[in-house]
């Protein structure tokens, strides 16, 4: 059983949604990013999504796109992502890598999976990989016992939800809206429907991401989903902080707010 599955089961047993927090490796620099994800773990995040900075981040809004651009300009490599994953795993938390497919394809799906597993990583979130094109990843994930998180959109028809959830392991990523990552004033009303449609096809946990950024929104999402995924709000706090110490403190405070929010009672 993967560390991700364990994290979701533990959260469910505590009558709360699992809190999944995203930060890209190497932003604003490697060590600060590592300290930030460790602060997220210490403050109550159940699963960490370590972003692999990519030059064409097609699902991401300006806050994350700018952060990963700066991480790449700073020289962030795949090896730095694995180091960040290892730090999370060593701290006892589940670490997934959120990555666009081309860097994995270029590295080799099996070699990437092997090195991720060796770093203690639990699996991948693959926003731009369709099940039809995922053959090498499905095989590598089986060989190295990794979780596979694919995304379901509000527009995904039932046959599509079936195809996507069939190849998922760990949890299913329910995208709350037809758009890019970023903070929104309210949680999109489509989110609950996406989760409901996922539940018709799988018993895997469903976690809602995109546009969730506050404790109040996390609380709302926790009423219908198994997990709450927050990315941009963390990245913006990192970007807005005057010093690395401020960035860590701000990430810790947001994590605590969200960790309180995901409790259902």
């Amino acid at each position, binding site marked *: 059983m993967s560390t991700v599955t364990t994290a979701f089961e533990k959260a469910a047993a505590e009558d709360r949604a699992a809190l999944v927090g995203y930060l890209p490796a190497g932003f604003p620099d490697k060590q600060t990013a590592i300290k930030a994800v460790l602060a997220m773990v210490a403050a109550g995040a159940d699963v960490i999504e370590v972003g692999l900075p*990519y*030059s*064409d981040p097609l699902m991401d809004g300006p806050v994350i796109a700018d952060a990963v651009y700066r991480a*790449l300009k700073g020289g962030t*490599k*795949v090896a730095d992502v694995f180091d960040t994953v290892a730090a999370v795993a060593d701290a006892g938390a589940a670490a997934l890598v959120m990555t666009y497919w*081309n*860097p*994995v*394809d*270029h*590295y080799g799906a099996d070699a990437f999976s092997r090195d991720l597993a060796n770093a203690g990583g639990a699996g991948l979130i693959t926003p731009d990989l369709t099940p039809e*094109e995922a053959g090498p990843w499905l095989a590598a994930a089986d060989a190295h016992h990794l979780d596979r998180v694919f995304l379901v959109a509000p527009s995904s028809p039932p046959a599509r939800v079936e195809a996507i959830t069939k190849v998922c392991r760990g949890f299913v990523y329910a995208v709350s809206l037809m758009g890019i990552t970023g903070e929104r004033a309210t949680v999109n009303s489509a989110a609950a429907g996406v989760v409901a449609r996922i539940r018709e096809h799988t018993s895997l946990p469903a976690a809602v991401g995109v546009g969730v950024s506050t404790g109040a929104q996390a609380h709302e999402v926790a009423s219908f989903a198994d997990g709450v995924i927050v990315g941009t709000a963390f990245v913006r706090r990192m970007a807005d902080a005057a010093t690395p110490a401020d960035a860590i403190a701000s990430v810790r405070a947001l994590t605590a707010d969200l960790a309180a929010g995901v409790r259902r009672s």
Partner: protein
Amino acid sequence: MRTYVLQDEEGQTLDTHSISAGLDYPGVGPEHSWLKDTGRAEYRSVSDAQAMAGFDALCKTEGIIPALESSHAVAGAIELGRELGPDALILVNLSGRGDKDVATASAYFGV
């Protein structure tokens, strides 16, 4: 479906440049990749300078203003013609017209 992409050793897409906006992109369509891999087509690269020489040549010899994208094909045909000799018969697919590109061409040639 896979395609050819200009990328670095970590799979990061590279920044690109082309005088032709339509070619200033790091990838190609998967159909071209397939045609290349199956050996049904041969692809060559053409520099900005070669493309603009092709543009210039077609304008002056035929009175046809080719798109800057298509100017690359003209440049490729000139190169191929030199290789095959005067008896060769070469068909060029002039895929677009260049009236949209006259400002770029004007700046390039300084006219």
